[in-house]
């Protein structure tokens, strides 16, 4: 019985390692799975390569504060990176 449990734990660990190795890639399949409001922001970042919330808001015609919220959500989800340069925060896809 104990042997069985050990094998199950090992298998679980192996599965975890495999899922950690898969990067959060912002490809079209991911874009399709995102909620509508985040998809628009994600496509805009893909187009601009890197941008501030201001620049994304200009493209999507939504408020800067709204875009800032969506961009940070995409950072938390692991799809985008955020970097401060002086007073501005830039969002980009790590390639």
């Amino acid at each position, binding site marked *: 019985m104990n042997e069985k449990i050990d094998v199950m734990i090992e298998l679980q660990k192996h599965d975890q390692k495999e899922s950690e190795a898969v990067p959060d*890639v*912002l*490809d*079209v399949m991911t874009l*399709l799975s995102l909620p509508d409001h985040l998809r*628009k922001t994600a496509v805009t970042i893909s187009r601009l390569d890197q941008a501030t919330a201001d620049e994304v808001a200009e493209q999507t015609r939504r408020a800067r504060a709204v875009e800032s919220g969506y961009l940070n959500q995409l950072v938390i989800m692991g799809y985008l990176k955020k970097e401060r340069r002086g007073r501005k925060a830039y969002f980009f896809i790590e*390639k």
Partner: protein
Amino acid sequence: MRKIVAFHSYKGGTGKTLFSISLATTYANRGKKVCLFDLDFRAPSLHAAFKTDGTEYWLNDYLNGVCEVEKVMTELSQSRARKGELLVGLANPSTEAIREMSAKDRKWEMKALGRLLSLKTTLLNDMEFDYVILDTSPGLQYSSINAIVSADVALVVTGIDASDREGTKRMVHELYDLFEKKAGVIVNKVIADLISSEGAKRKMRKQLETIYGLPVVEMIPCFCEILRAGGTYVFTEEMPEHPFTKTMDKIATKIDRF
């Protein structure tokens, strides 16, 4: 207004390549600056219609980050009808290249999407192309979805058989709607009897628009002359008085209004 137009379909063999070539040449004959790209990396076909000598760089190279897009584009020799410019970017037809493109991972597809999206700025703004036409692969594959996302207008070419209609309907709702694309449907190879009168045509158009939830741009009957040409020459340039050429002219005007 400058735009990127993608031809897509659920099934293969619906006429995407024919429409891509015909629309590109129609605009070029109107004096526009046009670029035509073959994004069907699994079954490249534009190279057969435009015999460009010694292609050095392919669209595969651009998406691989090997070269800039200018290197991929070949200007075609002037035809009598062409008042504008027509350039083509071809997909590599070698078996090795097809195999290589089929084995790309998600990270590569993500970078490819970025490079396709950047074409809007490079080609429409910097190089001042009036139209960029994308000939895509059928179905829901990475390369075709990437092309749809990058395009301003997506045109779905479909036939009238039930499986194509079902698949197209699903694809429209599960892909085009999600990306909020301006889109239209071209119904190709329609049996002439079904659209023989204006009334029958109107009825069929209404039915199809209800099914797809998209405007039907045109319903085109099956032309034996096109089949006979076998894609060996640019039909709309060689046959300027043919009804298909006239229909392409109408389609070009309708796309302008999208």
